[in-house]
């Protein structure tokens, strides 16, 4: 039997308000390796409505990246259903529904930082003047002003990561897939960018899928937190955090409600680990 993922025949409607932006049912993905299969995702069910901010958290190797890649049509599932904005991931990708921030910066070494940030804009055929303007704005946002004409290898690890964030934000996608975007950043920048991201999300009504390893970050940002567990990669808990409201400030992190949600996440995370000393 064949998954007719790419062969969908019905028309491709824009997501209707209320209809899930991401709709996953019974999804599984197995990597066939020489020494046996790896069950990266197993029977995953998940609905994400428009405008939600969903964090994914879980031990390393539990399939977070894989799940995002399936949504982005960069990986073909072995089984199950998946719809993105009401269409197949392939169609969604082809109509450029999302922006993806990879776990590694993936900057092109032959392009300056500015031209790296402008890459998607170039591809989308945006005029040079507007590209300039947008890249300047995004680089300012991630605090890389003054580094526009450097090449990637002349930047520190964290700066490269920020450049890749600027690149994904530059074309303002409705759906953002972010794979540990703030991993290499210190607390202060991270807090700053968290706030900026939250503001952006609130203002623009984007839907965000956000992989992180930081429990406070997950709780601070999300309306929903998905806790995953490895071998096989699966969802073990989905925690609703919308009660914290949409726009939050950093002080919220001391509230009991926040701490309680964080505790639940931590418990879930711990349960997903094999060693609990």
């Amino acid at each position, binding site marked *: 039997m064949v998954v007719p993922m790419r062969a969908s025949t019905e028309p491709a409607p824009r997501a209707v308000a209320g209809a899930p932006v991401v709709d996953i049912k019974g999804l599984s993905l197995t990597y066939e390796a020489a020494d046996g299969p790896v069950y990266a995702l197993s029977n995953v069910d998940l609905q994400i409505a428009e405008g939600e901010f969903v964090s994914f958290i879980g031990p390393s190797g539990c399939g977070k990246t894989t799940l995002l890649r399936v949504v982005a049509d960069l990986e073909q599932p072995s089984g199950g259903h998946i719809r993105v904005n009401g269409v197949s991931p392939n169609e969604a990708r082809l109509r450029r529904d999302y922006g993806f921030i*990879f776990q590694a910066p993936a900057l092109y070494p032959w392009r300056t930082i500015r031209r790296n940030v402008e890459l998607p804009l170039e*591809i989308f055929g945006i005029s040079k003047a507007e590209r300039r303007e947008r890249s300047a704005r995004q680089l300012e946002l991630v605090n890389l002003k003054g580094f526009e004409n450097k090449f990637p*290898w002349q930047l520190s690890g964290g700066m490269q990561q920020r450049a890749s964030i600027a690149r994904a934000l530059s074309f303002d996608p409705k759906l953002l897939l972010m794979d540990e975007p703030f991993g290499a950043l210190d607390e202060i920048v991270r807090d700053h960018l968290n706030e900026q991201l939250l503001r952006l999300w609130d203002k623009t009504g984007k839907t965000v899928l956000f992989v992180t390893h930081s429990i406070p970050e997950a709780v601070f940002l999300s309306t929903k937190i998905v806790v995953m567990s490895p071998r096989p990669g699966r969802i073990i808990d989905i925690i609703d955090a919308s009660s914290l409201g949409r726009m939050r400030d950093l002080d919220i992190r001391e509230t009991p409600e926040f701490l309680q949600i964080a505790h639940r996440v931590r418990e879930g995370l711990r349960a997903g680990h094999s060693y609990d000393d």
Partner: protein
Amino acid sequence: MTAARRASVLTPLVLAGCLYVLMLVHRPGVAGAPGPLFWGLVVALWLASIVALSGLSNLRLKSRPADRLASLAVPILFGAFLFFLWEVIVVGAGVPSVLMPAPSAIARRFAASMPVLRDDFIQTFVKSVLTGYAMGCGAGFVVAILADRVPFLRRGLLPLGNFVSALPVIGIAPIMVMWFGFDWPSKAAVVVVMTFFPMLVNTVAGLTAAGRIERDLMQSYAAGYWTTLLKLRLPVALPFIFNALKINSTLALIGAIVAEFFGTPTVGMGFRISIEVARMSLDMVWAEIALAAIAGSAFYGAVALIERGATFWHPSYRT
């Protein structure tokens, strides 16, 4: 610091020694039958020059232009020393000029034959080599892209590409003369066949060199084939493509010259070489070879220069 001192002391000494030996070897009594002392001197100079050169190449000068100059000096001095050895051995041991003429004789011949060399150069290099090189490299590149773009063609074209890879010059040159006549177009056609395959193979290898997330990034932009090619895969393939351009720059020249052995009008570097060999004018043969070496090296150098500019980001330039 010691390397610098060693180099700065030894280099002038070696130079002086070489000049002295050169004067010595051309003396009537010495030429053809020098004594063991003479050869001892030559060997000593050789050893000294190795020390001097390795000192020079490890030299680090403070000012940039001076450092450039020093780095240029090494190959030049090294080459000069090779020529010195050649001259001394040929003249000293009395090697017949039909086997190997002395560099001094070649240089004299070169200077005296400028008009002939110029005409030959235009015929062979400007007309045959440049045209054939551009067309051959272009064809190899286009076929590689075609094979990459159309999977069906890939599996058919690449084996066929291998098939034409080793059509030997001596086989195709007469056929090309038959097809395209005696003048330069038949030589250019030979060059096209010779340069095609290196470009094909290297471009195909280069097109597979892009990393996974770099490609995924393009996928996530739903970038089409050509966009991905232009903005990602070709830049990544450039180091490979330049390898082919470099290999071809020397291959094209050899190809054009050899092809002229198989029928030409009475001009061209290969024509001159083949007739002068039979006339035993080996000095003229070597003057043409020198011209080929100069032209080929300059061509190669130009390609390498462009490469450095175009692939500045490659790790091999970031040491």
